[in-house]
């Protein structure tokens, strides 16, 4: 957890995490193209600053829930690179022993409590974790990441309403990347900003530039400090941009070339680098951070690829709390 104003070293560490996520997902994309990643991995490329800026304020005891685009959140929360990659390629040493995969990353020890593949389903789960935190009274909080598309689900509104009523310590973090799957926001809703949904329920909210790590870090820090003090839920809408398609292999025919070029300029990594250079950090030091992250990621990827696959004879484990509860007894 970063206390008050981050030092230059803190920013460098956050840059390293941005790179880890970017390069990690690059490897997911590469191996998916090579047929080594089962299922439908979704990348958060371009949106990393939201994950890093928010999670910098969390401890392992804080709960985090995400959705189908959650690799970055998991890594920012502290999940091990190799165990996370191993899960995404379905290995026994993966976070969930290969039972969950890209869309269902869980790492209980790190407070990474769930990633749901059904849009909106994570919201009430996170509220439940916030309720448990409130019962414990230990100043921990719950954070849920979701896309702007989730506001089309009724459960978003139900959960916000209940969170305000119960004054739950939950931070709703909307990553508004302008697209709900393949359709732009304008075609989905006449409500331009997700934060506009907060006021009618009596919840404070803020819309920020989600591609500027410093902005995200500051806004999340203020919101989370309030949450720990029991001031009730908060919604942070982070305007961001998905540099990748909806899923790996998405040809993105619904986007213009100009559109994509304009956002390269918004890349959160490039922006943080420019800021750090302005503070006197050398280009070579920044390049060194990227190189280190790359080495770490490649080592994790190769370690994961070399790991054992799950034993098919274990496929019926973890269905119930006890074997005696298997579907039919006797």
């Amino acid at each position, binding site marked *: 957890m970063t206390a008050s104003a981050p030092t230059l070293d803190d920013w460098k560490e956050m840059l390293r995490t941005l790179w880890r996520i970017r390069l990690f997902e690059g490897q997911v994309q590469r191996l998916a193209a090579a047929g080594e990643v089962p299922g439908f991995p979704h990348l958060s490329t371009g949106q990393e600053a939201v994950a890093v800026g928010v999670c910098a304020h969390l401890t392992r005891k804080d709960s985090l829930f995400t959705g189908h685009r959650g690799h970055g959140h998991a890594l920012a929360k502290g999940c091990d690179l190799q165990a996370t990659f191993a899960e995404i390629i379905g290995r026994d040493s993966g976070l969930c022993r290969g039972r969950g995969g890209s869309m269902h990353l869980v790492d209980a020890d790190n407070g990474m409590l769930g990633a*749901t593949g*059904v849009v909106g389903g994570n919201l*009430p789960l996170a509220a439940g974790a916030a309720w448990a935190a409130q019962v414990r009274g230990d100043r921990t909080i719950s954070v849920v990441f979701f896309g702007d598309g989730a506001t089309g689900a009724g459960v978003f509104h139900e959960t916000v309403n*209940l969170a305000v009523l119960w004054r739950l310590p939950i931070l709703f973090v909307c990553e508004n990347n302008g697209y709900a799957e393949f359709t732009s926001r304008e075609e989905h809703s006449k409500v331009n900003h997700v934060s506009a949904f907060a006021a009618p329920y009596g919840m404070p909210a803020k819309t920020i530039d989600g591609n500027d790590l410093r902005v995200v870090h500051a806004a999340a820090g203020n919101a989370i400090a309030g949450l720990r003090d029991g001031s009730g839920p908060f919604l942070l809408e982070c305007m961001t941009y998905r540099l990748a398609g909806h899923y790996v292999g998405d040809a993105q025919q619904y986007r213009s070339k100009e559109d994509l070029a304009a956002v390269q300029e918004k890349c959160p990594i490039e922006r943080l680098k420019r800021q750090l250079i302005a503070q006197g950090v050398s280009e070579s030091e920044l390049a060194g951070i990227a190189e280190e992250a790359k080495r770490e990621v490649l080592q994790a990827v190769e370690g994961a690829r070399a790991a054992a696959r799950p034993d098919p004879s274990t496929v019926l484990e973890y*269905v*119930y709390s006890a074997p005696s*509860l*298997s579907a039919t*007894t006797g």
Partner: protein
Amino acid sequence: MAQKLTFIEILRRALDEELTRDPAVHLLGEDVAVGGAFGVTKGLAQKHGAQRVRNTPISEAAITGVATGAAICGLRPVLEIMFIDFVTLAMDCLVNQAAKYRYMSGGQLAVPMVVRTQAGAAGGAAAQHSQSLESWFIHVPGLVVVAPSSPVEAYGLLKSSVRLGDPVLFIEHKRLYAQREAFVPDGPLPGIGTARIARAGTDVTLIAYSAMVGNALEAAEELARSGISAEVIDLRTLLPLDMSTIAASVAKTHRAVIAHEAVLNGGVGAEIAAHIGHELFDELDAPVTRVGCPFAPIPFAPELERALLPGTANIVAAVRELSS
């Protein structure tokens, strides 16, 4: 002289005792802080505090999710969904999240949660407040489905459900709510997944659950008068299904009739019949027979409701047909 309690009073007593026993137990649902729609939780908020017995908005999807999220974080929530018909609004959470949490997380997290709900037809509640939807849930790995047949059964099964480490759908039949039974709390709690012999017999096995157990017992009484000895099995738990108790009985009687209020299509009876047909084929002296609701929604008018719902007479007729 044992105290006589209604089904509702006995549920309240079980919840009260579990709230007292374990600080992790919390109740939530629409109106539960003021007793709930049927009065099951009456007085519990006053006794255990508003933090532990919490009212919720009419938001079945969210409150089921909240209960699930709290369960993975160490609470033991007992959620009331007023009618099983409303569980349709909570299906994403129950089916996609709660049921699969343990599995998808590779055993890291569990959902020790009870969803209490009320089901079945009685008194003209009509098509959206009378259904028996249990078979949807026995199709979902990770869930447990419990359907008590009497007040005393409900007491032990609810307590066992609260203590289980898995998500339980606990189905209370509205026809049983006012039923009164002598109650002496003693003995061990029933194991989840164990059926019980409600009446011993030798000629035919009647397999039932929930309110239909009462009908099966009435049918057994009537059959006894014409010299047919029926054994009645109260399943208690529909998922998991206690096939060993069923098998032992059918191996003795060589005839089986399965009775439930739900429609026959894709029902619990079909599942049991398939097991008996496969595992006890050589034991059978007659085809396995099912008694259930004809394939129609539950109607409103009393005459129509009566015409549709299966009851004691249907069970007796099914047995007589097998024996003739």
